[in-house]
């Protein structure tokens, strides 16, 4: 029997959902226009008035906003309620520039935690579960968000935060954790450590995990599921819209259901801004229609994915998105070819390597170079130089087949690549240094 957190919403007929969205959108546009000068200016500039928006069909009339807008308006420019009504902030890591700070009212926090409660329920969790939160706590949305969602469901919540892996495993054993929530790269690392400590997945009560905050591949899912003896579910979200829980996987594990009663998705052509029909790859855009403090209209996520509607086997009618193929800023253009780290990861795992790698892109004599350092597994080592070079060559060939460009593959010692306890940094693009103007 499929369990739902908000059955009415999660299985709502599409026409009814559209009516609900329209009602909320109209209200939200008015709220934003009246309370956020930045939006009012953008809309005035485009010649759109709140009255022009009468249903979701009018969504395309609204201007887009992007991360640059959020940076320009930092910190309070997008705030739509008095600060006295806000109860919390979260912030992006700021790795790509200035941080984005998002504000939450108590209603915003409740909405967000409900979204996460839906995700936990869809993964089969309920009040009998012991849920270990190994996302970082703090400004990052992962820890606090999942923590709150877990409370809503009534799970016994273990607020571990990330790091101290042996202690994570000890608590997992001693307190019989049944759910693990963290980044997929950290889950893989915990799985690896369990193996090293000689613990079999059968000795653990763990049965499911909800992993997100960074892109991961189907192959990575299999690696995690095998090493931890669990079902691994994806969860999607971004600080700008709330945090994890914007979309979540159900037992089908084929795409993520978007909580579209709160977030209306669109997929657009990233170059022209044109809205694309369901089934086509494009940039995901979200409009949050219930958020009070930090409501974003048509926010461009830079994530590339495909939307699809149709009743899922789980019974949910919520629209689905594919796993993001990568954030458009993760995409590297190497010798004119679009390359996503996830494509390389797929090949590595398929060829029997651990998902521990560093991708280095550089420019030598005006030619892009792609170097991939990959950890070998201890059993892949041979005393013969020829064997090692053959392995490197055959892996390079498999990657070339996938990408269409020739990489240089370097096998490195087991455990020599630093493990990540949060979001993994796997790409070093040195070309940007060369592109800086000389002074």
């Amino acid at each position: 029997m499929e369990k739902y957190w908000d059955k009415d919403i999660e299985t709502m007929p599409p026409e009814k959902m559209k009516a609900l969205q329209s009602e909320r959108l109209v209200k939200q546009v008015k709220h934003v226009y009246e309370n956020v000068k930045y939006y009012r200016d953008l809309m005035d500039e485009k010649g759109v008035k709140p009255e022009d928006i009468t249903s979701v069909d009018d969504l395309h009339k609204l201007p887009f906003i992007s991360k640059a807008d959020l940076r320009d308006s930092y910190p309070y420019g997008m705030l739509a309620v008095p600060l006295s009504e806000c109860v919390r902030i979260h912030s992006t890591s700021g790795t790509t520039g200035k941080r984005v700070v998002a504000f939450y009212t108590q209603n915003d926090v409740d909405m967000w935690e409900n979204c996460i409660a839906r995700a936990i329920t869809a993964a089969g969790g309920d009040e009998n579960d012991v849920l270990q939160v190994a996302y970082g706590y703090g400004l990052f949305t992962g820890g606090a968000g999942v923590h709150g969602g877990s409370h809503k469901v009534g799970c016994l919540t273990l607020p571990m935060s990330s790091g101290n892996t042996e202690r994570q495993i000890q608590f997992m054993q001693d307190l019989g954790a049944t759910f693990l929530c963290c980044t997929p790269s950290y889950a893989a690392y915990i799985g690896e450590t369990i193996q090293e400590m000689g613990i079999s997945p059968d000795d653990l009560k763990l049965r499911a995990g909800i992993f997100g905050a960074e892109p991961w591949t189907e192959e990575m899912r299999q690696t995690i599921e095998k090493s931890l003896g669990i079902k691994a579910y994806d969860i999607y979200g971004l600080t700008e819209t709330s945090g994890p829980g914007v979309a979540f996987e159900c037992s089908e594990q084929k795409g993520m259901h978007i909580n579209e009663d709160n977030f209306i998705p669109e997929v657009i052509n990233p170059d022209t801004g044109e809205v694309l029909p369901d089934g086509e790859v494009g940039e995901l855009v979200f409009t949050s229609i219930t958020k009070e403090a930090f409501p974003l209209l048509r926010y461009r996520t830079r994530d590339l994915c495909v939307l699809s509607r149709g009743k899922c086997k789980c019974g949910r009618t919520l629209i689905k998105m594919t796993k993001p193929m990568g954030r458009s800023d993760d995409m590297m253009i190497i010798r004119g070819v679009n390359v996503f780290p996830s494509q390389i990861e797929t090949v590595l795992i398929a060829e029997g390597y651990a998902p521990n790698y560093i991708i280095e892109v550089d420019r030598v004599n005006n030619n892009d170079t792609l170097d991939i350092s990959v950890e070998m597994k201890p059993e892949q080592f041979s005393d013969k130089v020829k064997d090692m070079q053959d392995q490197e060559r055959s892996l390079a060939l498999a990657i070339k087949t996938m990408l269409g460009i020739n990489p240089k593959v370097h096998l490195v010692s087991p455990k020599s690549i630093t493990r990540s306890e949060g979001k993994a940094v796997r790409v070093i693009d040195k070309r940007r240094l060369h592109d800086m103007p000389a002074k």
Partner: protein
Amino acid sequence: MGYVRQISVFLDNKPNQLTGVMKLIKNHNINIRALSIADTKDFGILRMIVSDTEKAVDVLREASYAVAETEIVAITIPDTPGQLSRVLDILGEQNVNIEYLYAFLGKSDRSVSFVIRVDDNDNAYTALESGGIIRLTANDISEM
């Protein structure tokens, strides 16, 4: 039968890799009998025969090195011109393929010892025996 076992260790192409291995070996009081390093542009492979193979493998694995243990052929021959060539002829006649070899100091200064990595140990043993070449056993080496 006292076959000689060699340990090989993968070395990343960055400073202090060999130092790390040597420190571990030293801290565990393990003596090195023979050693060679194969280097490529990308990585190195350290190969050695040590006084306590099992212990060396354990401590290196514990420290996350990629380690392989291989059975190799060890011989000792007189330190005079043409001796190695004779050994190679003997192996060649039996179609034994050599992957690599390296010399190490033997018991006396009138002889020299070699580690030979071949594709077929049994075939190599038979060939060397019928050619009258003295093979070293694990015992011989530990007594050195």
